[in-house]
């Protein structure tokens, strides 16, 4: 079985909420990510799905070291970051890159496409000017853009083309892992398909590992090998893409799947609408976090937090299928 290239163990991130007129007392904590554990195998795509506010983007930021960890650990090739020496840490930092959601804000409007793409190379150092130019030309070709677009500015590209430049930038230092935070949600349907196909082809060609994050279940399911479903900072279910859809177990995942409108008029709508609103992460409900909205809730749900059962891993007291 291909080895685990990136794993996360009990990942936790609390954001202190400041209050008070002049001196900021920390009034409470937003438990954005609360003890999340999963692994991603080399060359595979792990999909993280969840509604807004469930903490999936925070996880991306933690992995990219943009935010410090509150608790838990990140393992790269079996070694936790804390134990790594500078050399290994540097290798980790350059083997992980990212593509973000908004094509208009992920490219610096003041820089030409070639500078944007070669930016990671310049900061990594060790590349001559000529290397960079060839690399940029090669990358533009890989992402399906014309060599001339190297000298163009971001506002001269369409949404889809900008996202291709962002992908080219991520590829520039031959990373092992690419974090895709809602890569296609800001694009039109035709561009979505172009980018998803592009990502699939690149993964095959360079043997990359993806962590794709999105609220759009269909997009994630189309490209991922295993999928994790998150709710309010916790991983409620994770399973291989194929089996997640057929034998779904967690009530929240089932509601999530049934809520996605199927583009086929004949499919009978089995409507299991989750009532109520997403509670505030400032003081999440005790016990199982989705018990206020869960149709199958029992007394135990409100007191005791369900453990993560192995295999088709589900965080719920009951076997519901």
């Amino acid at each position, binding site marked *: 079985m291909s080895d685990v290239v990136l794993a996360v163990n009990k990942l936790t991130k609390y954001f202190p909420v400041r209050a008070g007129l002049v001196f900021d007392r920390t009034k409470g904590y937003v438990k954005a990510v609360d003890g999340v554990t999963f692994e991603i195998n080399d060359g595979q795509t792990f999909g993280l799905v969840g509604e807004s506010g469930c903490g999936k983007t925070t996880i991306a930021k933690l992995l990219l070291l943009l935010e410090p960890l509150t608790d838990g650990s990140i393992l790269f090739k079996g070694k936790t970051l804390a134990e790594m020496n500078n050399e290994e840490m540097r290798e980790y930092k350059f083997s992980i890159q990212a593509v973000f959601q908004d094509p208009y804000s992920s490219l610096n*409007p*003041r820089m030409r496409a070639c500078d944007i793409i070669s930016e990671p190379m310049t900061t990594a150092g060790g590349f001559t000017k000529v290397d960079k130019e060839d690399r940029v030309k090669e990358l533009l070709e890989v992402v399906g853009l014309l060599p001339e677009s190297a000298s163009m500015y971001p506002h001269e590209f369409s949404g889809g083309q900008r996202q291709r430049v962002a992908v080219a930038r991520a590829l520039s230092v031959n990373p092992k892992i690419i974090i895709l935070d809602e890569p296609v949600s800001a694009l039109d349907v035709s561009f979505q398909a172009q980018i998803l196909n592009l990502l699939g082809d690149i993964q095959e060609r360079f043997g990359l590992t993806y962590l794709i994050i999105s609220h759009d279940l269909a997009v994630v399911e189309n490209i991922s090998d295993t999928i994790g479903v998150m709710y309010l900072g916790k991983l409620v279910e994770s399973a291989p893409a194929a089996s997640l859809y057929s034998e779904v177990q967690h009530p929240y995942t089932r509601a999530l799947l049934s809520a996605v409108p199927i583009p086929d008029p004949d499919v009978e709508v089995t409507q299991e609408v989750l009532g109520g609103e997403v509670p505030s992460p400032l003081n999440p409900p005790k016990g199982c976090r989705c018990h206020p909205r869960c149709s199958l809730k029992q007394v135990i749900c409100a007191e005791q937090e369900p453990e993560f059962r192995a295999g088709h891993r589900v965080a719920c007291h009951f076997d519901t299928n």
Partner: protein
Amino acid sequence: MTAMSSNTNETSLSAGTQTRKAHQLLTFIRRGPTIPALIIITVILCAIFAPYLAPHDPQKIDPKARLTPPAWSEGGSGKYLLGTDSTGRDLLSRIIYGARVSLIVAVIGISISATLGTILGLTSGFFGGITDMFIMRIVDVMMSLPVLFLALAFASVIPSGMYIIILIVAFFGWSHYTRITRGEVLSLKERDFVALARVAQASQKRIMLKHILPNPTNTLTVLVTLDVGGVIMFEAAFSFIGFGVQPPTPSWGNILSEGQNYLTTAWWIATFPGLALMAMVFSCNFIGDWLRDALDPKLRQL
């Protein structure tokens, strides 16, 4: 291999880039505001080449020709195009030299206040926390001070002259720049490309200089052009009340203040420097506004 999207739209792109660059440049000039640009250029020329352009020496007193009206009205003489002031000095050359004063004050004053303001704005916006709070409190105070009053207080301590105005402009002007740059930096900091730069392990310094700094240049250029008008007006006001540039060196302000007491008899002494002042400030504002529309990418697309 990857789907090569070389359909017609893409290829027309490459051929298009050269012609589009030329096209953009052309529209930039043709539709530009020609009149205000001309006014500013003439004023700048007067300032630099004052000695050659001015028909007479601004200080030369010609008692015979006291208070002669402008050439075209009766009693005016061709020698003094715009007439002379109370001591017979040629008004036109004094105005031309006056331009020199205003521009020097504007250029030096603003360059100091702009650079100072931008640096402070950049640091407070980028680092945030206490430094940000500290700088912003000062800016809030500065913004609500009665500038002229304090300038007066300054004037009473330091001997008047051109340098004091430059000092005052520099001292009071920077807060405006800081606030605007800080706002710009704060919004840029949240943008994805800064996070991506950090992911690419760019150092703090590099992010600030290479990624964030070049972006607010648009807004800064607009601010500077608008500020030039403001500073010139301030200089004139200050000299008008007798504290800025001391006579005999001519400045639009002090010519105007002289003109005030001869208003009833020699109306032209007050009117022409005022007109010059207004034309200059008007064109600065106009260019500033036009630049804001032209440089703002969002507007340009439509």
